[in-house]
């Protein structure tokens, strides 16, 4: 089959579309990490004392920790002193009041990324918080949402305007002691989004945050905090890209979600950080802690993620099912190509009675990449009637990549019903040739097959995102089989 492999190998490799850089004056603090740096970040952000204390406690705890090594990843040593922890691409003036005040270069950047920040140009039904490097550049539709009592703003603004809410919820789901990267983030986090949906309100539009790394040798450490009060609903989207750089860039974020009685939160991610080049040089290290607490009775949380970017992904969007009858879902497509590595999955912690969780994970590996699913389903001793269904599928393209599944089940109550299904399949030369014979080019055939395979997850995304995600899947895998 030598010739067949050649045919498949020779696809042109599509370049990473978002790899450009923006030339703006960026206020970057010196590289390095110590208490003074943390004080400086806090000072620049004009933070209250209690938040600085939170950061310092986190930092001191982080110093006692070692980087975790249990993931199925080969992570080169990271020099935390060689990174700058704060980069502000805005001009000296304080947060822009209107579009006229946002640097046109920044607007252009987000336009180029397909995220227009002018409200009249924006996708109808979607409000965006645009974050570049360490700061939020602009949040659209803020006022319109506030009419309904919905708070959607940058994290920094929330600290200023809604300190009580931040004090109450910051670190309540992911404490700074949670893990190495959570401690690091808690110490140096810069910006991110804050969402509060008041009681009984159904958020009328999709809320989204678009994260962009621009500056070189900086890390991005954002924090997203979402609170859905009783009987509310919100759908939230997250997108991310970064320029192509030969050095690795560190991204260590935290997302915390609290879902109160009968509320529902849908959180969707299309993660497309720069994955590195075909030889595995450069790319973003994506070490993220995402967790939601279904605190209220009958509350509902669903995570949907399409992960195509990053050189290394370490990410387990999880749910703590505290409230009785609460339910959680995790839908994931993780694609790795070339030398990318992903160790991703979820944790479903059943504490409340009659709680229900669903896990659908689709891994796609190509090139020399390694793709692992790691999931934990835990049912506490006193939890009655918990139910979990997990399905973990792996699709392999080529014979140099790896797919791994690490499901953990930790069930302490005999009324629980926990199911796990797993499959591994491969796109065969025969399938591709069959498509060719019908006039479909190999790359289009791969697109068809991969999208068919991932359909179950893609269908969970809001429509605009689903279309993007479909294209992204095909592009990420170009030049992949062989």
């Amino acid at each position, binding site marked *: *089959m030598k*010739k*067949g492999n*050649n*045919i498949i190998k020779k696809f042109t490799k599509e370049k990473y579309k978002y790899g450009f850089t923006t030339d703006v004056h960026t206020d970057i603090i010196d590289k390095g990490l110590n208490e003074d740096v943390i004080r400086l970040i806090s000072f620049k952000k004009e933070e209250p004392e209690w938040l600085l204390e939170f950061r310092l406690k986190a930092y001191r705890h982080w110093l006692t920790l070692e980087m975790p090594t249990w993931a199925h990843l080969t992570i080169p040593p990271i020099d935390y002193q060689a990174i700058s922890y704060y980069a502000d691409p805005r001009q000296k003036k304080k947060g822009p009041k209107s579009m006229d005040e946002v640097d046109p270069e920044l607007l252009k950047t987000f336009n180029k990324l397909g995220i227009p920040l002018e409200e009249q140009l924006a996708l109808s039904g979607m409000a965006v918080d645009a974050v570049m490097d360490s700061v939020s550049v602009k949040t659209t539709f803020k006022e319109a949402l506030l009419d309904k009592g919905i708070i959607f703003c940058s994290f920094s603004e929330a600290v200023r305007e809604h300190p009580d809410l931040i004090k109450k919820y910051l670190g309540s789901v992911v404490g700074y002691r949670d893990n190495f990267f959570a401690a690091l983030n808690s110490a140096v986090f810069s910006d991110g989004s804050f969402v509060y949906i008041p009681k009984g309100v159904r958020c009328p539009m999709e809320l989204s945050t678009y994260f962009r790394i621009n500056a070189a040798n900086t890390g991005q450490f954002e924090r997203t905090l979402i609170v859905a009060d009783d009987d509310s609903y919100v759908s939230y989207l997250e997108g991310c890209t970064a320029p192509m750089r030969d050095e690795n860039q560190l991204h260590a974020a935290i997302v915390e979600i609290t879902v109160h009685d009968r509320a529902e939160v849908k959180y969707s991610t299309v993660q497309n950080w720069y994955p590195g080049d075909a030889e595995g040089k450069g790319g973003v290290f994506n070490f993220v802690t995402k967790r939601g607490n279904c605190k209220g009775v009958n509350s509902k949380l669903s995570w949907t993620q399409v992960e195509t970017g990053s050189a290394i992904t370490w990410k387990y969007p999880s749910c703590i099912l505290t409230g009785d009858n609460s339910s959680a879902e995790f839908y994931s497509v993780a694609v790795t190509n070339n030398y990318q590595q992903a160790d991703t999955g979820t944790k479903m912690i059943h504490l409340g009675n009659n709680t229900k969780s669903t896990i659908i994970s689709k891994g796609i590996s190509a090139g020399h990449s390694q793709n692992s699913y790691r999931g934990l389903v835990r049912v506490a001793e006193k939890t009655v009637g918990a139910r979990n269904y997990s399905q973990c599928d792996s699709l392999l393209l080529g014979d140099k990549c790896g797919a791994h599944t690490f499901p953990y089940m930790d069930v302490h109550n005999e009324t629980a019903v926990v199911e796990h299904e797993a499959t591994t*399949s491969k796109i*065969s*030369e*025969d*399938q591709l*040739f*069959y*498509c*060719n*014979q*019908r*006039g*479909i*080019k190999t790359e*289009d055939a791969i697109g*068809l*097959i991969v*999208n*068919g*395979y991932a*359909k179950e997850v893609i269908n969970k995304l809001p429509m605009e995102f689903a279309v993007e995600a479909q294209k992204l899947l095909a592009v990420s895998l170009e030049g992949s089989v062989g």
Partner: protein
Amino acid sequence: MLEIKDLHASINGKEILKGINLVVKPGEVHAIMGPNGSGKSTLSSVLVGNPAFEVTKGSISFYGKDLMQLSPEDRSHEGIFLSFQYPVEIPGVSMVNFMRAAVNEQRKYRNQLPLSASEFLKLMRDKRAVVEMDNKLANRSVNEGFSGGEKKRNEIFQMAMLEPRLSILDETDSGLDIDALRIVAQGVNTLKSAETSTIVITHYQRLLDYIKPDIVHVLYNGRIVKTAGPELALQLEDRGYDWIKEEVAE
């Protein structure tokens, strides 16, 4: 239209075709028969450009174009269709999406605009009728969970959708019961015209009762060793291949 000259082909270094010469004109139906391992399926694979096979010598031209220079998908766009002996399953890809991609790629090659969703669905409906294919099958994933007969019927359905100038039926009769055979053959006959040609590869006379060949070839040991009219197929049915092998040996 199709002219094969001194075609040699091998797989993994082993020569299977050892000098095939064949001319197929518009409107003709050729049957290629022969014992197992004679190279029949290799010939069909080579015609559609299966990369598993290497052409070591010879030429194939199709309406004046050198086929060897065309990718498998462009051969398809030029109007060559293979009904596979073992159609492969493609889980997750619906027949509708699959056919839409195939039809629109062909249209693109011919500088035609893609069909609208409603035009396409109408085409699907019309062509499904040719092989009496159930709507349910059309909504399933490509060949997934299809019975042997359904798979073959699906091949002819795709042939109807793509309207090829040359159809190659590789053992389309294998695994078919008599009713399915009749439907498949009827489908093929309906699609036949004075401009289109068909190559039927088969072990048995059975299919040729339904699809009447103009010319019958016997392929043996990588060469066409006998060519005659439809009566040859009947002779083979009666006497088997041994007498041909003996003739060749002499």
